[in-house]
């Protein structure tokens, strides 16, 4: 029995109740003894049926019991807990800034901690894998990544939960408001309102508190690291941007200073000749070579319709600068001076730097700091059929149903075929 899993365990608990109900039915339907002086008038015909009736009563009752028990078992949906049938739960983790705020009910416990605690309490059968709901392409982790213990530096897109409303998927977030999964399960940890910094401006910090929003002029020190690895004039351009934004240009990490951006060189994924590019952005034009790519070695050119400094080759995408939150990698190896409108070039370059720059952890938007609604939804154990059709996970349920039907027919046969009314 320990190897059995049940879709609807309550049906199993109904079995003893069924046995009691069956016995009461049997007692109620047992023939009542009556003395009669006209016994001979009954036994002329009924006496022939007596033996058959005696034989048929109990077997019919047992067939009925079997039919009801099998029907209940089919309803319970049993399945074997074998390795092959174990479910792999995909935990879709919301890693937005609010998840790393204090939960509010216990000191030092974040909303993420509370959600993980609830996940452990659920004790999911089968294996578990974790996916960052805001960075679906980032990868699937079999273990809880250490890096997820702190808030991501990346600016995140809103999570499209509805696309993940699937069986064996568990949404893990802090706020259940607006979430109503049908097939997926849900753990929303909830949390109390947490006041604090909500935005960072050039001249100070906006801090939201009980009395409203106040402005704090003490901007925390932030730096841009790794800029010396870039060749000129790119590092010069970046340094100018850094000064304009009030950031510290630092070759190495400075203790106690938050690094808003790190600059690095793009590593060649494939050794070979550099790729020649001719990037026409309309207002200005860039030419040169960039890191090689396995997709193509022919000369690339564009008419400026692509996003800044990304090139489309046959079957591949090449970026002169790869941008990630908090990290910029330069892929340009050699180039000619920019032709055309240098101001437009500077605006595009500054836009790339601004997009890659991240804010300190303590700056959390006001929308994230609000109270979150806790909720838990346990979806049934379902498997997805080959054509997307949902079906119960129990492979035995149909056979149990057929068995119940056969038992029912047998009980009819035993109970009525020997009845005198059929003769």
């Amino acid at each position, binding site marked *: 029995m320990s190897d059995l899993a049940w879709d609807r365990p309550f049906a199993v608990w109904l079995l003893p109740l069924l046995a009691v109900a069956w016995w009461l039915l049997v007692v109620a*339907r*047992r*023939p*009542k*003894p*009556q*003395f*009669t*002086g*006209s*016994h*001979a*008038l*009954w*036994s*002329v*015909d*009924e*006496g022939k*049926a*007596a033996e058959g*009736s*005696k034989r048929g009563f109990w077997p019919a009752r047992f067939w009925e019991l079997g039919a009801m028990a099998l029907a209940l078992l089919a309803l319970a949906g049993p399945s074997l807990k074998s390795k092959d049938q174990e479910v792999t739960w995909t935990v879709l983790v919301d890693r937005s800034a609010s998840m790393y705020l204090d939960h509010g009910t216990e000191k030092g416990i974040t909303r993420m901690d509370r959600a993980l605690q609830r996940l452990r309490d659920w004790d999911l059968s089968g294996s578990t894998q974790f996916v960052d709901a805001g960075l679906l392409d980032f990868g699937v982790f079999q273990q809880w990544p250490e890096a997820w213990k702190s808030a991501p530096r990346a600016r995140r897109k809103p999570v499209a939960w509805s696309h993940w409303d699937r069986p064996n998927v568990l949404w893990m977030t802090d706020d259940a408001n607006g979430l109503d999964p049908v097939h997926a399960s849900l753990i929303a940890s909830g949390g109390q309102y947490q006041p604090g910094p909500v935005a960072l401006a050039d001249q100070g910090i906006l801090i939201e508190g009980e009395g409203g929003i106040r402005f704090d002029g003490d901007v925390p020190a932030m730096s841009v690291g790794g800029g010396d690895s870039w060749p000129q004039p790119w590092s010069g351009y970046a340094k100018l941007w850094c000064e304009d934004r009030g950031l510290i240009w630092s070759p190495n990490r400075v203790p106690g200073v938050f690094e808003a951006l790190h600059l690095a060189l793009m590593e060649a994924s494939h050794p070979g000749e550099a790729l020649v590019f001719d990037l026409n952005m309309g207002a200005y034009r860039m030419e040169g070579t960039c890191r090689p790519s396995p997709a193509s070695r022919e000369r690339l050119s564009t008419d400026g319709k692509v996003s800044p400094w990304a090139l489309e080759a046959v079957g591949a995408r090449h970026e002169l600068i790869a941008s990630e939150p908090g990290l910029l990698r330069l892929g340009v190896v050699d180039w000619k001076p920019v032709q055309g409108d240098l101001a437009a070039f500077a605006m595009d370059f500054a836009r790339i730097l601004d997009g890659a720059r991240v804010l300190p952890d303590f700056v959390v938007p006001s929308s994230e700091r609000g109270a979150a609604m806790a909720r838990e939804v346990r979806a049934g154990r379902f498997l997805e059929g080959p054509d997307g059709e949902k079906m119960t996970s129990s492979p035995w349920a149909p056979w149990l149903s057929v068995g119940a039907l056969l038992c029912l027919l047998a009980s009819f046969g035993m109970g009525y075929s020997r*009845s*005198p*009314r059929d003769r």
Partner: protein
Amino acid sequence: MKRDPFAGTQPPCPGALEPRDFMARLQCLSGAFARQRARSEGYGGDPGAGRGQEFIGYRPYRVGEDARALDFLMLARLGKPFVRIQRSEVQAHLCMLVDTSDSMAVGPPGKWQSAAEIVAAWAHVACLAGSEVSVVHAQAGSAPQILHLHKPAQWRDFAGQLFRIRARGGADLSELLQWRGLQKRWSQVVCVGDLFDAQPNEFELHLRGNVPWTLVRIMAPLEVAPDESEATVWLHPKGRGDARSDGGVAGHWAYLRRLAENQELWRSWAAQHRVGLLNHSSANAFEEVFLGSGHGLGGVL
């Protein structure tokens, strides 16, 4: 060896109790019977119950009356039809054979309770009319015993003994008919029982002369109209096996058909041999035997 689950069980109503207002009801019955007797004088009563022989007078013929009752001498002399008014002669000695076998303990209401009330009432009315009454019964393993009632003043003791009899293992009517003491000295014989264990030809040996016989057949409601909705194990009162019905219409219709055939057998036999036959349900009051059947006690008194 298979155990009989019903071994040791017995029919539920072997005893009889004298109803609390029994005497008052008997007095009402006697009065009602006297009025009925006055109204029916001259009709001669049921042939099986004994034809009256004592001549009282004449009265005009009514349409529909038996033409044999016409006095043709009066018709010839006066030119108008008259019938002779006759009154039944009081039977000097009434014998009542009472079935006290186990089948009379079937009920409720118990058949023996109903039989005892009828016998007591019949004896009371007959004794008031001047008859001597003997009630013959036989308890388990013993010879038939006779309860005598000679005078109305003895009725209390008579009824006391009668209601002390229990329908437990006694003789049925078939066994009583084999009693050698059943001689021709009775001038009227009334048999009270359910007639399920008897056959009509067993009575034929005793039908002779002008001694009128009346059979009072008592059945329990569950014998007259068994409940068709529930499965029942029908037990023989003497433990001779059981029959089963699973409930349902068909089995009960078959039983009712056989019961009707059985009753028709007795009815036709009674009519053929001029024997009175009164069917009575133990659920009904004993007065209905005397007043409701149309037979009355005319043949007895």
